[in-house]
Structures are given as C-alpha cells and as structure tokens.
C-alpha cells in the first residue's frame, strides 16, 4: 500500500489562482520522496493539503491509508509535520514544546517527559532543552521542529524545506537525521529547493513547476533521461579550439561551451571519462589548462521539461 497517494489533486485559491493544478503522486512506504521546485511552484500548498491544513478543491489524496478530506483526524494521528517556518513559541523551552506536542498526540505526561528526553538527546539539544526557544539559532529551531514532528513516531513524515536558510553544519545534522529515519523505515515527504539535497536524500524526486509535476523518478533515472554527460575543456594559450574539437570527435558531438570554457563535447558513451579525452588531446599535441566531466543535474532535467532554469533554486555549494 502506498504511504501517500494523490490523484488529480488541485487547489484553487480565492480569485481563481490555481496553485496546484491536478497532480498525481504515489509514495511507497519507507520511501524518501523529494519534492523539488522553485518558490511559488506549489510545493507548500501541496504539503498543506496532504497534512490536512488545507482542503483540496479537486482530486483526492490518501495519506497513511486515510483520505485527507474525509478522514483528516485519522491522518493527523499518523503523520508528523515540520512546516516551512519552524513555528515555535519563543517563550517556551524546547522540552516544554515537545511535552506539549506529546500531550496533543494523546500521550501521558510521563510518556511525554520520557520521549522529550529521548528526542532532545537524538537531535543534540539536550543541553539547551530548558532554555527558551527564542534564544535558539535557526538550526536548533529546525532540529527541535523535527523532534516535535517525531514525538509520536509517525509512519509518514512531512518536512517542508527543512534546511532552507541553515548553515552547512545544521543542514548536515538534518540530513543525518533524515538518513536515520530512512533506516528506521519512516516514509518521508521532503520538499526542497536545493538540487543537491533532493539528489542526495531522495529515493525518488518529483519536480513541480506552476502547479504541475513535470518530471518524476529516481534522481539517476531523471538525469539519464536528460542526456549523457559532457566534457568541458579550457585550453592553454596557443592551442586551437577547432583542433581540440576535431581530436575529441571520437568521444561525441561538440556542443556550445559554457562560459570560460573553450570546447564542450557531449559524450556518446557515458562510460567514457576524462582520461580518454586527455589522451586524445595529448596525442594531438594540444595543451590543456583545465578539463572537467559535467554530469546532468536535476536543474538540467527541469530545464529540459520546462524550458527554463530552476529559478530561485540553489545547490548547497552555492549557499556555502
């Protein structure tokens, strides 16, 4: 049985604005599904419908075996939610917030206390547990948010842009936790605008643009669909670009070189590597300053499907 299944899911806001225009999603139990798209693509609206915060205006969605519109209370019992902005009361301590969340999930006080200690330890906040959340850093708030979402050991966890705006250390801490959840068999629906995050974390990725899913599959399959890798070359002064293209012709077709590069060749055989290119250039007596193998990214997939780049999207490296 699918942990999440949406069919023709739609959301139209007042004024006729269609944020989500009939999407189909199926996430298997224990899968990490990356939901990638630029700001305003419909990621958060989709998540809010799946977690019962927003009623769909069309289509259906079943989460953890229950319909989000007709059996919202059952859905809420089975899911954990960490929304885009870590909405935490700054006047409460981390421990108090987890215990409150445990109470709202129907746990006893003793269970809540025990679970809070366990989760605070797990997300590395045990030393800050009795400090007010107003004094936490962004990364600490995110980790606390995650701990609160895990308080009742949900079978399906929704993480809406859990690492946006975080420093690398905090981001990696969240990634580690998601990886741990993967090993524990929790289904995770993860929205992100970071290409690298979706690539590394997700078993499968759905790319949304303008309220529609434009591509879906494993990151590797999507990138393979998008085309073979290519080689970009920067030649030393005195070496001719035309000559380099001729010498690299056995490897594939020349394509327009990227900024700062002299030659680019789309490889006809993706098993071909940089070593083959260097050998061919060397045999032709051409001197190379720089050479790199560029594999297709999810951004290339987005570009291919929509004709534009993932506006507002970023890689982790960009932010670092």
């Amino acid at each position, binding site marked *: 049985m699918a942990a999440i299944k949406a069919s023709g899911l739609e959301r139209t806001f007042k004024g006729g604005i269609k944020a989500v225009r009939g999407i189909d999603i199926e996430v298997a139990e224990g899968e990490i599904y990356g939901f990638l798209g630029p700001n305003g693509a419909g990621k958060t609206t989709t998540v809010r419908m799946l*977690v019962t915060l927003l009623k769909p205006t069309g289509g259906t969605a079943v989460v953890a075996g229950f319909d989000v519109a007709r059996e919202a209370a059952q859905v809420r019992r089975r899911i954990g939610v960490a929304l885009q902005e870590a909405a935490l009361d700054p006047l409460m301590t981390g421990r108090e917030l987890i215990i409150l969340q445990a*109470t*709202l999930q129907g746990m006893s006080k003793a269970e809540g206390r025990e679970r809070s200690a366990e989760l605070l330890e797990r997300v590395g906040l045990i030393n800050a547990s009795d400090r007010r959340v107003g004094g936490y850093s962004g990364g600490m708030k995110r980790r606390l948010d995650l701990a609160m979402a895990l308080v009742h050991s949900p079978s399906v966890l929704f993480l809406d842009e859990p690492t946006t705006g975080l420093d690398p250390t905090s981001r990696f801490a969240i990634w580690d936790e998601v990886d741990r959840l993967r090993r524990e068999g929790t289904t995770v629906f993860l929205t992100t605008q970071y290409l690298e995050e979706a690539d590394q974390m997700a078993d499968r990725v759905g790319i949304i643009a303008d309220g529609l899913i434009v591509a879906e599959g494993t990151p590797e399959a999507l990138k393979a669909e998008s085309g073979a890798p290519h080689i970009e070359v920067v030649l030393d002064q005195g070496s001719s670009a035309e000559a380099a293209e001729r010498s690299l012709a056995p490897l594939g077709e020349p394509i327009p070189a990227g900024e700062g590069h002299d030659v680019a060749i789309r490889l006809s055989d993706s098993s071909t590597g940089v070593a083959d290119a260097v050998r061919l250039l060397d045999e032709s007596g051409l001197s190379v300053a720089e050479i790199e193998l560029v594999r297709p990214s999810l951004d290339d997939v987005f570009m291919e499907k929509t004709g534009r780049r993932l506006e507002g999207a970023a890689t982790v490296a960009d932010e670092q």
Partner: protein
Amino acid sequence: MISASVALARRALRVTLRRPQFLAPLLIFPTLLLAVNTGGLSQATSLPGFWEQYGVTAPYPSFFEFQLAAAMSQSLLLGGVATGIAVALELEMGFFDRLVAAPIPRASIVLGRLLAAGAIALVQLSWFVALSLIFGSGIADGIPGLIEVYLIGAIAGIGFAGIGVTLALRAGNASTVQSIFPLVFVVLFLSSAFFPPNLLTSPADVIAKWNPLSYIANGLRAPIIGASGTSNVLEGFAAAIGLALFFGLLATWSLRGRLQSK
C-alpha cells in the same frame, strides 16, 4: 478534548505570565483610572439616588469601593483584547498551524485559550481585591461575596476573551485586534460601570441598559459594597454566562469558518 484543552490552557497561561508586557497593562491602566476617578469624582456619591440603585443603606461604602468594579470590568475587557492579540500573533507566526495539524478536536484550541483567560481573570481580580483590602474595607460580603466576584469575573473574562479570539480568527492579524483597544473605553463608558444607571442621561442610559457590561459590573460591585442580596448578582451571572457562551461558540464557529475558507 478535555486533556488537550487543559494542556493548551496551561501553555497559554505559562506564556502569558512570561510576557509581563502583556499582563502589566491589564492591571496598570485600570488601576490608574481607578486612582484618578476616586481622587476626582468622589463627590458623585452625594448625588441624590446614587446608592438607592444598589439597595445599600447608610453608612454607605466609599466611592473607591464603588469604582473597584469598574476597574475590574476594564481590566477584564483589556484581558479580552490581550487574548485576541495573543491568538493573532500565533496565527501570524504559524504556531496556530501546528495546533491545527495536531490530532485534537479543533474546538479544544479555542477552549484552551478561553480557560486560560478565565485563569488570568482570577489573577486580575485578585489584584483589585488586594487593593480593596489595602485602600478600602475589603469585600463587604466576606468570603461568599469574594467567591461571587471571582466567579462572575472569571466567566466574564472568558466571554471577553471569546470576543478577542473571534476577532483574531476573523482578522488573522494582531494589528486589527489591537485597533479595537479604544472601543474598550467606549463600551465601558456606555455602561453603568462608572455611574449608577439611574443617574445616566439619555441616550447613555438606554445604551447602558442593553450593554451586558452594565450587568457584569453591577454583579461584581454588589458583593464589594454589601449588596449581594439584590438581583444584581444574579443578573451579573446571567450576563457573564450569556457572554461567555455566545462568544465562546462564535469563536469556535469562526475557527471552523477560517479553516474551511482556507
């Protein structure tokens, strides 16, 4: 439903007590007005028919004791505004979504807030009871009178909080809720909180007659000035309960409407 409401009430209470800038005005403004009124208007008690309305006989209570109920009413009204602002802030910062996403009856979110407002009302009333012991002769009708004051006040506090929560859920932002602050004074002055209704002139007397705050203020006042035996207490209870039920339900309905319209 009950455990979730109690947990949310405890949380709201804890947060309010940690935010002195929210709690202090509920006590300071009414206390200042009480001091000003008591100092400048005490001769009003000499007006013919001033005390007859309340069924008390000589020796009459002081004007300070008369005004205590007005200060309590003002404080409770301000408490309603503060509750509304707190809910609106939770809506703005997204904490409200966390509560809505929890597997609890949605009504418990409103009920928890109102229960906390009732508890805070007890703190507010205690402040004025303490003032009555320090500067007056206490609650004239003793412990039973004190219980009446606490009950009417707490229920009225819940009703005023219901108004605040309703406004917050409909407006969705704190600034709109805050903008009703001046209305508190209009409602107060168009009631018999500050003066006996029989001394008000038209149209204030007509408006005061229909203003539930008049009955709440008189209900709070009766035990303080030794008039618990009059119909004022029962009318005070009726007005407070009616207000709490009406606005409690309206707030719950507003929450439902807000979630459905999203």
